[in-house]
């Protein structure tokens, strides 16, 4: 029975992680920018929502406003920083370091304003639980799963059915070609990061609803998500999502056979080995 409950936990964590992975994959596949600051945007979303709710804004509205805020910040980073850097023909390394700078800025603004203490959402509904065939899940967890699956489906549709989505995939597959066919990659980049920031805000708000807020929390999440992205094959929405869920489920179930100190270590060990033998990921396109 424990394994079933653990499985459920894994699925919840995995879904949230999956959304982060998709959003990062969207950015990385299109812009080739290792957007570490994404972790900052993720964290920021939660805090914005939290303080709005403190000021009596109803939860759903708070979520929407938080999403708006994240979108704006994401677009700003691309337009004001990455775009400039690329105009100066900066290398990956330079952009990565700049991104780390942004991360530090966001995290510490948060830490300065809200103190580094763990904050808990006041809202009571998230804590209520219901039993699905003996497996106990909280409303918040249920919501996370539903929203994540919806997001996953939505992005799939967006990427393959809508014009903008196709345009983005075109730029992703060949920026140079896109350039000469006047698809204006830079505009697309801004849109992509904006969308990704909006998307990552969902878990950014919902997860803290049950796990609380911490200014320096986002990095590990992003890193695990990145691994899911790579292992799943950059650019593959399904790959990122599935791998994220798989990783989370494995980490949870692994507790049955080994002490938890090692679960993270083992995850990365498997990943490193995996990279040696399948450097292009599972669902890699081409």
């Amino acid at each position, binding site marked *: 029975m*424990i394994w079933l*409950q*653990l499985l459920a*936990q*894994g699925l919840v*964590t995995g879904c949230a992680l999956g959304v982060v992975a998709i959003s990062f994959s969207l950015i990385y596949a299109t812009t080739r920018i290792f957007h570490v600051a994404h972790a900052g945007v993720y964290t920021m979303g939660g805090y914005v929502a939290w303080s709005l709710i403190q000021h009596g804004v109803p939860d759903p509205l708070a979520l929407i406003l938080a999403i708006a805020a994240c979108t704006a910040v994401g677009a700003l980073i691309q337009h004001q920083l990455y775009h400039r850097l690329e105009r100066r023909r900066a290398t990956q390394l330079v952009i990565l370091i700049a991104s780390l700078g942004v991360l530090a800025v966001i995290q*510490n603004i948060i*830490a300065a304003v809200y*103190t*580094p*203490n*763990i904050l*808990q959402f006041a809202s009571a509904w998230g*804590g209520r*639980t219901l039993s699905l065939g003996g497996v*106990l899940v*909280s409303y918040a967890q249920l919501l996370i799963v539903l929203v994540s699956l919806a997001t996953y489906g939505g992005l799939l549709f967006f990427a393959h059915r809508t014009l903008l989505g196709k345009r983005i995939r075109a730029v992703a597959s060949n920026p140079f070609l896109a350039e000469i066919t006047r698809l204006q990659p830079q505009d697309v980049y801004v849109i992509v990061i904006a969308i990704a920031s909006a998307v990552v805000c969902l878990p950014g708000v919902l997860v803290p609803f*049950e*796990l*609380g807020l*911490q200014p*320096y*929390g986002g990095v*590990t999440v992003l890193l695990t998500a990145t691994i899911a992205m790579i292992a799943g094959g950059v650019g593959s929405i399904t790959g990122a999502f599935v791998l994220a869920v798989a990783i989370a489920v494995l*980490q*949870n179930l692994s*507790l*049955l056979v080994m*002490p*938890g*100190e090692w679960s*993270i270590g083992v995850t990365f060990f498997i990943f490193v080995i995996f990279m040696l033998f399948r450097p292009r990921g599972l669902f890699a396109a081409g």
Partner: protein
Amino acid sequence: MVRRYWIGVASILAALAGSAVASPSFAADSIQFGAVLPLTGPGGVIGTQEQRGIEFAVDEVNAKGGVDGHQIVVQYEDNQAKPDQSVLSFNKLVDLQHVSVVFTGYSGPTLAMAPLATRKKVLLVNAGAQADKLADASPYLINTLPTIGDEIKVLSKYLASEGKKKAAILFENDAAGISGRDDYLKLIPAAGGEIVAQEPSQFGQTDYRPALLKLAGSNPDVVVLSITAGLLQLAQQYRQLDMKFMVAGTTFMADPPTIADPASKGFIHTQVQIDAPADMAANFKKKYGSDMDFFAKQYYNAATVVLTCLAKVLKEKKEVSGENLRTALFEIRKFQGLIPMEFKTNTAATAIGINMMSDGKDQRIKEISSE
């Protein structure tokens, strides 16, 4: 290129030397303390509270005109809970500010500074970290609260007496958490109980469900905790999964929001006795907007101890040095800060109580001394 490099290094060194000179110089008669605490990073949660505790105590004294006419100034350094930064900060405080007392928290940094404290005869005052290694790390390292070991000995005895024999350990995978776990492993069997399982949680990571579930699998009577943060989340998840076992732990558990939350009903923990008078707690909350939690109280308490020693040293017209302060401390031996303390060794012997959380309050149900 080479010229450029020399200019660069020279300017940096100049600037540093500058920082030596420029570092805030105070009225000649003011006395300076130092504090090396984790003010940023995951450790910042506790570090800031510790800082506030010291600040609160010192402001109080300064408002009353200082220690026989001397204003007290505390220089805070951020070590991000890292040993190398701590050593740098320690040397900075001692060389540039000539402090004779350095407050510290966190085992790692404290252990890194201990040898320096011995060599330079600077009083190193710890009121937060409880790792057992701290007990004899340096003659100049003073711990104003008992080690985890002392607390866990008490807790183990209590649990055994309550017939909670089968214990499982949930510990935070960091210095404090692990040394706590090691004590449980040693002391619970010693008290006649047995350890049926143990599971770590990553520091700063607040999803305890997997760990709780796994521990529940070995159906223990009690799960003993060794975690310093995220207790509220743990309590809520414990309720959500509606676990049957009892939850017990040490002073780390005395976290106001958790106590206030109904989810923590029935949690048991040892408590290094420390209570702030209601009005003090109120003023603290007014000043910082957050409750005067355990660490704030501890560092307030530690500050009063140091200030008492300082008063003695000044009264005897002796030079304010770590050495003299240390002698004073052992001459006074018995202190009445927020609680009575006695220094037979470097580690204060204080009262340890057993508390139970219920309907938003933390009630004492038993009291023992830490020796």
